[in-house]
């Protein structure tokens, strides 16, 4: 049997490698390995031509991290610290709405969780230091806040709502890395079920009605704890089998 095919939204951006400096469709290998390690097959979905037809071929989808969502999507003006990625916004909001409408198992990571909230009619805080008075949700690039001996900057606990699906998956609490300066304010049609206990910043959103739609504000792909990826791949396998049976 074919492994569940998991689409992962990719960046289209300037990269430097070897002696090359060029525009590339790309995604850090940590995402790819997280899907392969949990039994899925990763394919990268570039924001080249906004369309949703690719959804039909996927068993599940991951919306990856990256820049900020344009606040125009929820009717706000951009904050001076907001750095939008217009190309990805257009493509990913279209894909997200289609994925949710199709009830395709969906995982949002960092920016991906924020795209989930905005696609579902929600809003974001554009710059957390303005709200909570510190920037400890944003670890320095290249740092592993979960590593042995790392400072607590960019690492914090998450408390999880009893009775939620995230609680069944992750338990009552977790310790996570943190690489963001924006956060979900209103999760729209989703439900907030996990928070940073220090400042009440929303860390997990989920759907009670869709088969699998989970957003996490941290980067599980950069840790050894791949439970959210395993849950996505499992849901993708289950839904794919079920949908094929229904079609047959």
């Amino acid at each position, binding site marked *: 049997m074919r492994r569940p095919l998991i689409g992962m939204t990719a960046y289209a951006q300037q990269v430097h490698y070897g002696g090359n400096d060029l525009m*590339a469709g790309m995604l850090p290998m940590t995402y*790819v390995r997280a899907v392969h390690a949990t039994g899925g097959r990763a394919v990268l979905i570039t924001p080249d031509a906004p369309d949703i037809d690719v959804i039909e071929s996927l068993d599940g989808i991951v919306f990856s991290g990256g820049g900020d969502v344009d606040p125009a999507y929820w009717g706000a003006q951009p904050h001076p610290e907001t750095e939008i990625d217009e190309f990805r916004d257009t493509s990913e909001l279209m894909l997200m709405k289609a994925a949710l409408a199709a009830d395709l198992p969906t995982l949002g990571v960092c920016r991906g969780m924020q795209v989930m909230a905005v696609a579902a009619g929600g809003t974001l805080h554009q710059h957390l230091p303005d709200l909570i008075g510190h920037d400890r949700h944003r670890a320095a*690039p290249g740092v592993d806040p979960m590593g042995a001996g790392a400072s607590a900057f960019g690492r914090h606990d998450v408390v999880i709502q009893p009775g939620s699906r995230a609680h069944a998956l992750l338990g009552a609490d977790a310790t996570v890395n943190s690489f963001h300066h924006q956060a979900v304010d209103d999760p729209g049609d989703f439900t907030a079920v996990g928070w940073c206990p220090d400042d009440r910043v929303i860390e997990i959103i989920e759907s009670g009605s869709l088969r699998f739609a989970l957003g996490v504000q941290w980067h599980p792909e950069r840790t050894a704890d791949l439970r959210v990826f395993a849950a996505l791949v499992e849901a993708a396998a289950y839904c794919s089998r079920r949908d094929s049976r229904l079609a047959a």
Partner: protein
Amino acid sequence: MRPIIGITTYVERADFGVWRDVPAALVPQAYVEAVTVAGGRAVLLPPDDLDAGVVDVLDGLVLSGGADIGPSLYGAEPEPLTVTRPDRDGGESALLRRALDRDTPVLGVCRGMQLLVAAAGGRLHQHLPDVLGHERHSPAPGVYGEQVARFVPGSRVAGLLGDGAEIQCHHHQGVADAGGLVVTGRTEDGLPEAVEDPRRRFVLGVQWHPEVGRDGRLFQALVDAARRAALSAAG
């Protein structure tokens, strides 16, 4: 629904935005744009050697360029200037075998052409300047060698591009023996620049980089073949 075209990715340590030295799956955006312009839906395929089942949902496959293929793929020992990516070799070989089994349309570009040749039982020269005595196929890092290829009349590539074409090359290895494939294009030094398998729906390898520049005819031909393959599979 557009034909889905898988493009194999490189895996390289890359700098981007504020990030440095991050292992990333990547492919030059020019490949993605070439597929998009031709009417296909590009999805990128990072290397994965567990299985090649993903080919079953593809309508076409592009084997992209990059580092040298492992000489073990054609039964040789690596020479001093050969730089390989074993993770790509395994994953891409499996994808190619599956694609050939299913008669999925395949376009091989540069390294991808060399992979096609190895899969067909051929072999490569591991450093062309040693064989040809010139560096016109890869004049300098980041610089394409501008050359002219001549095509065999009646071949697939001649049907697409005519008698010849100006091509942009960047490779230091080349085809010594095309194995079960037919050589249908060469530069004036005699080096094979195009190979194809006339027994299959669409299997074309080119040693140059058709994604660079504005000539989209090869990608158009791949996407058209992929569309036809999808329609015939749908019955």
